[in-house]
């Protein structure tokens, strides 16, 4: 499954664990939060990396311990107009102090990438085709921003 | 959507580049004049409007395409049924600018 990281399309080895799937214990898996909460014992012998998939109706601060243990957190954009994941990301980064990979999955528009990055996301798993040239151009147009944010690469007024 | 309306129908939309209101014509083009519009009268023609909308959207020339119900006035001219569409066809009812 290809994803976008640092402006490039890369192959990705994470596997989404659905309810009953049998995955090797060495695989890198993405586990939905509810599965994690109900079936954590299944993972006691898991040797691969574990990522947490959190849907956008969840108060992330209620699961600070699970976030802290995760190797990656994945948040969802079920529609590109649904902005909840932006706030969840800021809470995860700025309040829970999570510093590993934070991924957004779903209906991501090229034109939103800069906003998402400023909220703390660093990889994108999005529906639709990836056009590297458009991505590059559109993510480089704005070099300035008024807000100071997580790992900000934009010029702000100092 | 098209099927719920009752009566003769024409397709309207707005030009992507300009925003002007236009109507779908017999020859498959778009005209600013409602009188040039292709009229769907039979059930088959009305069913076909959805297909025409999908095809027209693909050309990326006209946006916000939908069917409106039209009638003929005493002079035989096409007139939209709804006040909103009448206004849209004739322009603002006030003296402006």
């Amino acid at each position: 499954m290809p994803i976008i990281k640092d402006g490039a399309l890369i192959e990705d080895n994470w596997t989404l664990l659905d309810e009953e799937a049998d995955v090797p214990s060495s695989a890198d898996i993405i586990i939905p939060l509810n599965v994690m909460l109900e079936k954590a014992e299944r993972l006691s012998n898991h040797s691969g990396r574990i990522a947490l998939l959190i849907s956008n109706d969840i108060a992330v601060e209620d699961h600070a311990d699970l976030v802290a243990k995760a190797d990656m957190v994945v948040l969802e954009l079920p529609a590109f107009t649904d902005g909840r994941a932006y706030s969840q990301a800021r809470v995860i980064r700025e309040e829970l102090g999570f510093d590993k990979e934070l991924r957004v999955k779903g209906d991501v528009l090229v034109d939103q990438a800069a906003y998402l990055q400023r909220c703390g996301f660093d990889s994108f798993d999005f529906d639709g085709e990836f056009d590297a040239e458009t991505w590059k151009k559109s993510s480089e147009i704005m070099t300035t921003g008024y807000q100071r944010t997580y790992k900000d690469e934009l010029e702000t007024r100092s | 959507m098209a099927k719920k309306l009752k009566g003769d129908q024409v397709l309207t939309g707005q030009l992507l580049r300009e925003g002007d209101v236009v109507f779908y014509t017999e020859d498959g083009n778009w005209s600013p004049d409602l009188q040039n519009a292709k009229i769907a009268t039979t059930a088959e023609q009305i069913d076909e409007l959805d297909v025409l909308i999908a095809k027209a959207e693909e050309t990326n020339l006209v946006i916000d395409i939908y069917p409106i119900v039209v009638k003929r006035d005493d002079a035989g001219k096409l007139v939209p049924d709804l006040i909103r569409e009448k206004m849209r066809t004739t322009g603002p009812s006030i003296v402006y600018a």
Partner: protein
Amino acid sequence: MYVYDDFDEKFVRERAAQFRDQVERRLSGKLSEAHFRPLRLMNGVYLQLHAYMLRVAVPYGTLSSSQMRQLAMIATKYDKGYGHFTTRQNIQFNWPKLKDLPDILDDLADVGMHAIQTSGNCIRNVTSDQWAGVAADEATDPRPYAELMRQWSSLHPEFSYLPRKFKIAITGASSDRAAIAFHDIGLQVLKNDAGEIGFDVYVGGGLGRTPMVGKKIRDFISLDDLLPYLVAILRAYNLEGRRDNKYKARIKILVHETGVDEFKAKVEKIFDGLEKDKLTAPAGEIERIQGFFTLPDYQAAEANPETFTKARSENAAFDSWVKRNVAAHKQAGYAIANISLKPIAGIPGDATDEQMNLVADLAEKYSFGEIRVSHEQNLVLAHVKEEDLFELWQALVPAGLATANIGAITDMITCPGLDYCALATARSIPVAQKISEKFADQKRQEDIGDLKVKISGCINACGHHHAGHIGILGLNKKGEEYYQITLGGSGDESAAVGEIIGPGFSGDDVAGAIDTLVNRYVELRDEASETFLQVVKRVGLEPFKEALYADH
């Protein structure tokens, strides 16, 4: 007023370049209409009934003469020679073409203007008192904090895909001319005994189909904590506001359904967890912004100079204009001159390119080159010497800009309605024109006194009908326009939602119905100084109902 530095200019130019790229991708088909729509809306571009519409931001309603001239140029070059000033202190152009919009945004950037977030589900243009900084009843000038919020809210990474639009208004005066109680967030700027700035915070007000008066959730939040507190409110809203139904997606519904106390507790909890020093403005920034809002270089001027009083006594029309359109100023010898955009039977809020250019020139000559737009769709020259008022008035008369009706019955807020708007259910402008004609007599208007009539062409209430002393709502019944009348609404510090008086009226009958209501008011008032709103509050709706429906 605030003037862009290199940073602001770079930001706005980059934003214009970004929109140019988006329009190119849209025209080439790379970007679908569904994906483009929210992007164009966040640049103020709507698709209206007849054409695209561009809404340009006028931050907290303040413009320079050169900016006004550029708006006139845009009206001439890309539109049909006019623009429409809106209830959010912005200006909109009714006929631009999408292919020209990138050029228009560049032209705006040339004078430090933009159309950022004048639409879309994001934080909209911050609005304020049109007399900010000069009103005699003002404790603290709100403009520096409005500017601070303008910057903070622009392309906010976290709050650009909210459940619905989000409007913030701020005032520093005891009379609320910014309608803060009808905004998603309303802020009252205060100064405590120690001279420190703070803000009372109201949340959850709004008009639309579910009108609500905002509730105070915080007293005197400090200046340092203002932006973090806004982050807390917006984060609570962004995470929990309803996204299942666009008509229930405003923060007022969340506050109402959650309960004010519980909502406040959520906000406070988020606020407590924030790293506030990272969210507030950098050190020195507030002082930098405040530096732009010092008072202009007033000359020592005599109050009520003889030339002024003489002109008033010799010219009844000028005297009427002074009475209705000129307001008290902080500075002795100066006055606030309000320019009505509500000529009798005209289109409320419209101004031609020539009128815009004239106002720009007059502002330069008489008012330090600064113009304000009010949410009641009028213009303001905020620093005019009393001795210059007569000359100013004489220059306004031939341009049709000297109508003496500010706050009077013909000074109606009116949305564009079905003449322009794709969402409208009925026309607003022709109704306003008929009412205006009916009450054209200056003597009668003066006798009626303060009376705010507000007209909306659909339930979305852009014409603020809920807040009108008389509100008019245009609806569609069986294919015909008809109009529902409400009484007793108020948009100021006594904020209230009007009550529906009874069955609606046809477009032809509305003006007559208003006439009947006003005549009844004149009969009912105890003395000439008792206003329409005071009478409605005192006697209730019943006597008005009788007057309206007794014969029916």
